[in-house]
């Protein structure tokens, strides 16, 4: 049986040198042997050229030795390049393997580790610090072997040339070896401090980014700068010390090696004058002696890389050398299928700071029983829920899941049977579908062959149960129609559009602004009103019209250009006046035609307008104002009134623009056509063939319901939901509302059909209706089938739980059914504010 590999944090740096790199290291040795030989050969050729070719005046010999010299130099450099390529290859393969292994180890560390350490520290370790030791691994074999061999070859050659001169000139190297390690130890100490400080610094940066809202909210920029300044200063000092020692090593080394030629000139010159040494031999000796310097320098540099790599590697591995108290995968078996029985015996939980968060908790739940945990903030409800989900290590007392001691179950056993939904669920970058299937995909490798992955029907059922279906559908309806991806549904969309117009056009006439060639569209921009279609060529996209010379010329001919620039000036004035001092947040700029980034530019233009007339503005500034005006959408941007006369002018221009485009740039715009889809417009707008009017919020729901009915009739609903599932959720799900994030987190867990469900205030961000839906789901579909432990804040939803445990100061003070506890008039009664 193969020996189990030690965890990465226990592995030595040397262990990476050969593992997985053996063929490459062998190839390196071959190249090194050739390389060493080709480095010595030119020295001999030098001697022979001087002594034999020049001395005997033989041109043939000169060419022969010269050619050999050249061949040796070419081969030597080719070998050197090959060695460097292979070293880089080994270093990068090792870096990738180290990163994979370290990340795998880090992800499995207990949750407590991540509470105590900043994410930035981990990022720094994986991204930056591992590069140094992996560079060492790349050169670990080749550099010492190549340079030692070269050094020995040169030393042997020197001894062969002149033993006395060789011994005297080689004596400097032992002297150097006595001094250099002393300096290197200083460099190591400084490097050790640098690694620790760099980790703290990275952690601090990450912390500040996470808390950027607080920093902006409190204008705490100076506090943060002060905290950074102190760390930067410490890092600067330690890097200076590190640098001083490193360059100290280099300088000392240079000094010793510079002594070599001095000794050779002195002693060699004396021997040559006395006729005891040939001039050619002296030249060869000087060349060889000088060439000793290169391998020696490389050895010393390698020594530094080794020392830096060793210190960095050890420091990094020590930081992550934390043992996970639980197993990740079950040993040699599929995950257990547990009964939904849950028992807690005499459970205590004490924080590292010694604070007792749970005390003597005892409870037992039958499979399918539902328990609500209630109590004041800080009473320990969430701590108990997290202990049950193995996210807090249980040290005193026991928890049994399906009769198995929790501490003996692997993470995979727990994930296969227990689902946890936290109050602030985390979503990962990717689509709704990716996040929805996250839990199932995590289990898939372990459950291969024993559990089937969820089907589309399963997914749709869960979306319905959690109330996410309408959201996903809405995302689908808001997705711009992309001919490349959505062509198949185009005919269906047109059928739904026709039906909507026929049956509901009149009813929703007040709520939908239909695309009518004779009407100005209040919920479309001026650019969209002029085009009355969707651009097929990029220069006709509404956002680019101001940069389209043809269009600007058209506007000038229509006598609209200056009027639009004037609209731009008025918009800029109003926007800068209202939003000029507000932070660049979406909430403030969503109703503005100007983005936060553009505000300073328009502020400058307005400054110019104080001193100059609009005609004196630069063309760039004029076009920027035109662009702003073309974005103006009266229904959304309320800071300006266009006037009926101007609307009529724009409408007249719309008709002429269409004729000009059809005549001069045919195909540039797909004009709105009731019988054709409008590319790049949202699918809902394609169905309605118009804009929804934001001023009728309650009616939007009715429109949506009507559209859903029509989509069902035309068998398009699943296709639109499928498109909605491909919606990108953004960073940490920031494109979703708090309620949508919670619904997605619940759906994610329900999709894997857990036997035990832990809900830690999982519905706190939901509105009443959504909360009632989830509650209803628990009561009708999950009662008796799935054991539920729910941390609940709102007491109006606990009536249907089988039992309620009231917690106070880390203890369960009473437990029983809602009716029993209310009749008892104890803690729950008090909590409900009845006393």
């Amino acid at each position: 049986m193969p020996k189990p590999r030690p965890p990465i944090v226990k592995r030595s740096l040397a262990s990476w040198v050969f593992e997985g790199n053996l063929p490459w290291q062998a190839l390196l040795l071959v190249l090194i042997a050739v390389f060493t030989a080709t480095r010595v050969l030119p020295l001999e050729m030098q001697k022979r050229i001087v002594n034999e070719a020049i001395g005997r005046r033989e041109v043939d010999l000169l060419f022969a030795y010269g050619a050999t010299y050249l061949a040796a130099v070419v081969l030597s450099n080719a070998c050197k390049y090959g060695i460097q390529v292979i070293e880089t290859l080994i270093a990068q393969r090792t870096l990738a393997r180290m990163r994979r292994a370290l990340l795998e180890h880090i992800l499995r560390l207990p949750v407590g580790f991540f509470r105590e350490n900043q994410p930035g520290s981990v990022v720094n370790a994986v991204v930056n610090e591992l590069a140094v030791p992996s560079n060492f691994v790349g050169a670990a074999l080749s550099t010492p072997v190549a340079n030692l061999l070269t050094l020995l070859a040169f030393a042997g050659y020197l001894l062969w040339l002149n033993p006395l001169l060789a011994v005297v000139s080689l004596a400097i190297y032992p002297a150097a070896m006595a001094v250099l390690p002393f300096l290197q130890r200083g460099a190591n100490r400084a490097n050790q401090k640098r690694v620790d400080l760099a980790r703290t610094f990275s952690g601090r940066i990450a912390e500040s980014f996470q808390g950027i809202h607080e920093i902006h909210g409190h204008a705490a920029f100076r506090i943060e700068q002060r905290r950074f300044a102190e760390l930067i200063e410490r890092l600067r000092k330690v890097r200076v010390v590190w640098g001083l020692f490193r360059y100290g090593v280099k300088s000392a080394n240079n000094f010793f090696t510079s002594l070599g030629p001095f000794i050779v000139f002195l002693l060699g010159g004396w021997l040559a004058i006395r006729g005891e040494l040939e001039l050619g031999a002296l030249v060869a000796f000087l060349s060889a002696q000088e060439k000793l310097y290169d391998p020696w320098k490389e050895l010393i540099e390698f020594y530094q890389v080794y020392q830096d790599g060793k210190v960095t590697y050890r420091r990094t591995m020590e930081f992550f050398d934390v043992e996970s108290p639980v197993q990740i995968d079950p040993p040699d078996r599929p995950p257990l299928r547990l009964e939904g029985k849950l028992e807690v015996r005499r459970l205590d939980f004490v924080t590292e700071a010694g604070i007792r968060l749970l005390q003597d908790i005892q409870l037992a739940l039958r499979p399918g029983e539902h328990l609500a945990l209630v109590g004041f903030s800080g009473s320990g409800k969430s701590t108990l829920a997290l202990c049950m989900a193995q996210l807090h290590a249980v040290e005193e007392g026991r928890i049994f899941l399906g009769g198995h001691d929790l501490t003996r179950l692997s993470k995979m056993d727990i994930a296969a049977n227990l689902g946890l939904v936290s109050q602030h669920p985390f979503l990962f970058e990717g689509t709704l579908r990716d996040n929805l299937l996250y839990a199932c995909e995590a289990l898939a490798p372990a459950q291969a062959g024993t559990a089937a992955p969820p089907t589309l029907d399963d997914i749709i059922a869960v979306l319905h149960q959690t109330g996410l279906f309408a959201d996903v559908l809405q995302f689908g309806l808001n997705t711009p129609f992309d001919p490349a991806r959505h062509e198949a549904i185009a005919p269906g969309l047109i059928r739904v559009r026709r039906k909507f117009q026929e049956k509901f056009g009149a009813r929703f006439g007040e709520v939908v602004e239909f695309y009518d060639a004779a009407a100005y569209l209040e919920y479309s921009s001026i650019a969209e009103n002029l085009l009355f279609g969707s651009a097929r060529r990029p220069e006709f996209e509404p956002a680019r019209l101001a940069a389209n010379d043809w269009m600007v010329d058209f506007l000038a001919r229509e006598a609209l250009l200056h009027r639009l620039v004037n609209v731009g000036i008025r918009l800029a004035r109003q926007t800068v006046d209202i939003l000029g001092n507000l932070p660049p947040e979406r909430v403030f700029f969503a109703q503005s035609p100007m983005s936060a980034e553009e505000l300073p530019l328009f502020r400058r233009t307005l400054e110019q307008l104080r001193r100059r007339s609009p005609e004196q503005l630069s063309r760039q500034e004029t076009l920027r104002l035109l662009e702003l005006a073309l974005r103006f959408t009266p229904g959304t941007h309320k800071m300006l009134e266009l006037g009926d006369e101007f609307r009529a002018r724009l409408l007249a221009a719309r008709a002429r623009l269409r004729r000009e485009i059809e005549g001069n740039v045919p195909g540039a715009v797909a004009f709105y056509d009731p019988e054709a889809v409008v590319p790049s417009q949202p699918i809902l707008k394609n169905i309605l063939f118009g804009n929804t009017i934001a001023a009728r919020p309650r009616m939007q729901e009715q429109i949506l319901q009507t559209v859903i009915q029509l989509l069902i009739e035309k068998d398009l609903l699943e296709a639109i939901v499928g498109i909605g599932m491909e919606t990108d959720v953004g960073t940490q799900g920031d494109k979703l509302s708090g309620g949508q994030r919670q619904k997605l987190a619940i759906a994610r867990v329900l999709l894997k059909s857990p036997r035990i469900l832990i809900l830690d205030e999982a519905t706190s961000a939901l509105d009443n209706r959504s909360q009632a839906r989830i509650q209803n789901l628990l009561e009708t579909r999950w009662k008796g089938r799935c054991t539920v432990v729910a941390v609940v804040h709102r007491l109006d939803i606990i009536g249907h739980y089988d039992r309620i445990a009231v917690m106070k100061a880390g203890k369960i003070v009473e437990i029983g059914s809602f009716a029993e506890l209310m009749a008892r008039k104890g803690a729950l009664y008090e909590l409900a504010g009845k006393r």
Partner: protein
Amino acid sequence: MNSPGNAEPERGSEYEENLELLRQIDFFSGFPLESLKVFAYLGARQRFRAGEVLFEQGEEDATAFSVIAGRLRLERESGGAVRTIRRFEAGAFIGGLSLLGPCRRLYTLRAEEATVCLALEREKFTRALEQFPAQMPRLFQTVVNAIVGWEENFLDEMAEDCGRCIPRLGVSLL
């Protein structure tokens, strides 16, 4: 050709009308013009048909409404019966408390005829308010005055007829 310097004939924009409206509402009376401009900009017109609901009893709605035109009816459902509590007409401001924090609606607000309101959402209001922290004490004072004033009026005018509800009084002592 028109010169861009020649200003368009200025008509009141929706934003300017909103600003004028907010200046007349007690709830916003303590705010300086700079902050009122932001609230006026963030507010949105909403139109309701007769019978349409603005918010529903039991719902956690986060919008305050100022009636611009039309009439609204406040209802309370209890034991299956719906009772009209009162009516609001142009100039009324409803739901200011919901701008300060999540609160469940105790009533249903319904349009009795075609009605136009200026609606302000809590998220926008609070984000804007964060930009003017110096105004917080004034806002709190407005709310305190409203609560105490309401109870004082109630005590002066209604307490005699109140009967069983007397022990429940004291909302100003919160």
